[in-house]
């Protein structure tokens, strides 16, 4: 993390080093990511969303509802775990939004903004910190799945592909969450609005129940929902014999998911940066 002396172009008074542009961006981002990570063990309740909640859903759907949900061709475990992973990524949006909204109300962000620190570094630090929290959640889901007998049918190259796609999805949803957290004033409002929109969408997305047998309206939404693309992508890689289908998006889940993520990033990154440069509080 500490760069070498060659990276420094000049020495400012008081031992401060004038780091050159890109190095200064990386350095500041890592420092600010570290700031977010240190909060994790000190505010453990923030982790509940990414730990206890998916575990509860896993247990509920595996042992309570699952037996009543018919899935053709693969076991319910192989059907559900990709769904839980997709849903966790979607819920990450709400967690990120809440954390961002909270953070923006703290004076510390104003201090960073009044310091010679790149404004993009402040946001990317936030994004990376949130992604680390979510990775912890995904690791717990995957670990628990393997213990409970989920078989992800992965070889090395597909595992790598899966990891890359999960990271891309997480990145897109996290940026979305950061923007959302900046636009909505209070963390409670973020929670409220997040759950009204994301909660149903994430359940419709072929997460726990096949899309094909849903009523017309939810089925149509689900056929184009980015969360469906995420779930179908993970399922396509871990249960290759299962094919969701029903719309262009579900026939080409990986491509659709990548396009969705690029679209979300293309919209959310510039908007979040612009929003951050404007007033946040009066």
């Amino acid at each position, binding site marked *: 993390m500490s760069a070498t002396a060659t990276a420094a172009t000049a020495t*400012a008074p*008081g031992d401060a080093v004038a780091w050159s542009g890109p190095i200064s961006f990386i350095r*500041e981002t890592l420092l*600010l990511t570290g700031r977010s990570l240190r909060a994790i063990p*000190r505010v453990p309740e923030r982790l509940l969303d990414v730990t206890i909640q998916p575990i509860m859903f896993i247990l509920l759907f595996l042992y309570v509802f699952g037996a009543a949900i018919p899935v053709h061709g693969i076991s319910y475990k192989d059907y559900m775990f990709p769904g839980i992973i997709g849903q966790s990524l979607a819920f990450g949006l709400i967690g990120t939004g809440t954390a961002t909204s909270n953070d923006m109300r703290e004076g*510390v962000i104003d201090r960073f903004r*009044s310091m010679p620190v790149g404004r993009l570094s402040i946001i990317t630090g936030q994004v990376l910190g949130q992604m680390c929290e979510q990775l912890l959640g995904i690791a717990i889901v995957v670990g628990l799945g393997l213990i409970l007998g989920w078989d992800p049918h992965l070889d090395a190259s597909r595992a790598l592909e899966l990891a890359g796609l999960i990271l891309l999805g997480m990145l897109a949803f996290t940026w979305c969450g950061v923007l959302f957290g900046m636009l909505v004033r209070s963390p409670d409002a973020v929670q409220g609005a997040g759950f009204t929109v994301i909660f149903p969408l994430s359940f419709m997305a072929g997460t726990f129940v096949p899309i094909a047998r849903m009523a017309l309206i939810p089925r149509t939404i689900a056929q184009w929902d980015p969360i469906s693309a995420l779930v179908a992508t993970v399922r396509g890689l871990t249960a290759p014999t299962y094919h969701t289908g029903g719309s262009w998006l579900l026939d080409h889940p990986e491509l659709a998911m990548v396009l969705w993520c690029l679209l979300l990033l293309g919209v959310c990154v510039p908007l979040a940066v612009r929003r951050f440069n404007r007033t946040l509080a009066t």
Partner: protein
Amino acid sequence: MNDFPTTGLAVDAEGLTKRFGDFIAVDALDLQVRTGTVVSLLGPNGAGKTTIVRMLATLLAPDAGHIRVCGHDVVREAAAVRRSISLTGQFAALDPNLTTRENLVLMARLRGRRRAAAAAVSDALIERFDCAPFRDRPIKQLSGGERRRVDLAAGLIDRPQLLVLDEPTTGLDPRSRQIVWGTIRELVADGVTLLLTTQYLEEADALADLVVLIDHGREIAAGTPAELKTQVGQQRIEIVAADADSFERLYEALAPEFELTRLRERRTLSIPAPDEVADLARVSGAVAVSGVAVDELALRRPTLDDAFIALTGGLPQAESEAGEPALHRADVAA
């Protein structure tokens, strides 16, 4: 990069204006802070002080006017301004989950120091601001006064050309306020240029070379504390009543004969005394005749309090446009 003293002005604002919808928070304000001086923006809540500070710290763009801070334009040269100033906002600008030391080290590293140099400067600041007892406690567990000290320390990691403190003692108990004042005085003795906002007259009086009275986003008066006091004019006699009841009785007894200003919150009657000791004799005679219990009766030079009340419209000689007197309710009996 840091050569600005050509003008000798750490802050030079002209026609500074900021609106929030229909509300004009700052109204065509001119403000100058000379290098090496302490200027206090004094005004009630909502006067526009924090908006001014946020504009000059590059956190908010002005709608009209120009501000140069340490020779740099805040809009066009924001990065250079951020390198020259240090802002300590109204609420502790620290990460609540990090400890005192972690906060300082983080800020020092963000200001470009390597790990070892950041640790060294943090430890020196912890020493200097007496933060050692809580150096390893998370900020959220500290008292208001302790947070303020860490806050001030964080503002001084790089010796800023301009230090901006937004209401540094608001919400502190008197003891913590004294400690913070002591710290600020030390900084000033070191020659730091300081812009300070406050709603406390005594704070401006105690710390500032120049006081700018702000109300409704405009400058109402500016000058040294002594000049502002002189502007209010002559000496006054102040009588502090023993309790609320004697305050009222005293008012009724003296009202026919004297020009009284009532400062009800302090149970104080204030009377102009152009003839000084002769007036004192007349007033004390009248008080003795009334037989009302009095805690204190004294001839006073005007305080900044008087200046503020006078200049924000609390007294008849002030401009009538200034709306309600903001800090103390002062009823005027002619």
